[in-house]
């Protein structure tokens, strides 16, 4: 599949990723000095939902984040594997046809803290996200989409076990 990947995007990636990697590495090294303070974020409710990330169960996290409950909807398409190839890197993506989506969040029910990631979707951004999450063990992955004030969700179980024969 990646055999023909010697095309332009590959080189571009190197350049693009290069800048990020170097900056990333720089930041990674520079952390100890801790330069820079938390900049005020202009984005809509850009405040980091500290409380929600502390909640254990997905229900509490949803309540802490949105203050309301969600109803399942087949308009929320959650794409997650049957058996995760590895609990540390589980590719999960969500897309939806619901109108004016303002926020999308991912929950992994059995993780130490259920809320994994929460995204703010300003107008003009396509309501579809792919990311890679960590999963402690086999459990439900829940994607919540906030569309015109109402919450819609999709849930899928992803199996996670360790690999290998064990030394």
């Amino acid at each position, binding site marked *: 599949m990646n055999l023909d990947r010697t095309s332009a*995007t590959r080189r*571009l*990636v190197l350049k*693009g*990723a290069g*800048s*990020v*990697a170097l*900056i*990333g*590495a*720089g*930041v*990674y090294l*520079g*952390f100890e000095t*801790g*330069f*820079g*303070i*938390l*900049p005020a*974020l*202009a*984005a*809509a409710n*850009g405040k*980091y*939902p500290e409380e929600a*990330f502390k909640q254990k169960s997905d229900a509490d996290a949803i309540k802490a984040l949105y203050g309301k409950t969600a109803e399942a909807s087949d308009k929320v398409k959650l794409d997650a594997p049957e058996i995760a190839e590895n609990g*540390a*890197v*589980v590719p999960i*993506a969500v897309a939806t046809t619901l109108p004016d989506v303002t926020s999308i969040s991912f929950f*992994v029910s059995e*993780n*130490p*803290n259920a*809320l*994994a*990631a*929460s*995204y*703010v*979707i*300003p107008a*003009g*951004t*396509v309501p*579809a*996200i*792919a*990311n*890679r*999450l*960590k*999963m402690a063990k086999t459990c439900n992955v829940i994607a919540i989409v906030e569309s015109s004030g109402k919450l819609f969700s999709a849930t899928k179980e992803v199996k996670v076990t360790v690999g290998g024969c064990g030394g």
Partner: protein
Amino acid sequence: MRATATGDTTEVQALIQHPMDTGLVKDAQGQIIPAHFIQQLTFEHNGKTVFLANWGTAVSKDPYVKFSFKGANKGDDLRISWVDNKGATDNTTAKIQ
């Protein structure tokens, strides 16, 4: 980071080199590796935030995210900045191809 515009929509893929330590893992000597992960990631185009990510400890090492947005064209700048749980921050800019 890779940003490619096709028509009116720009698809953005970002891969950031970062350990994303959860603070729940012990190292070889049995000491807890302190939590150290990116909490907030902001993408701005012409000063307007087009995407904001709030990340917890469940985001994989070397985090990756893909999204797309409308209203940008080739050659524009896309600024990505992130803040971690220690308050350290950094940013970088890439051209939309």
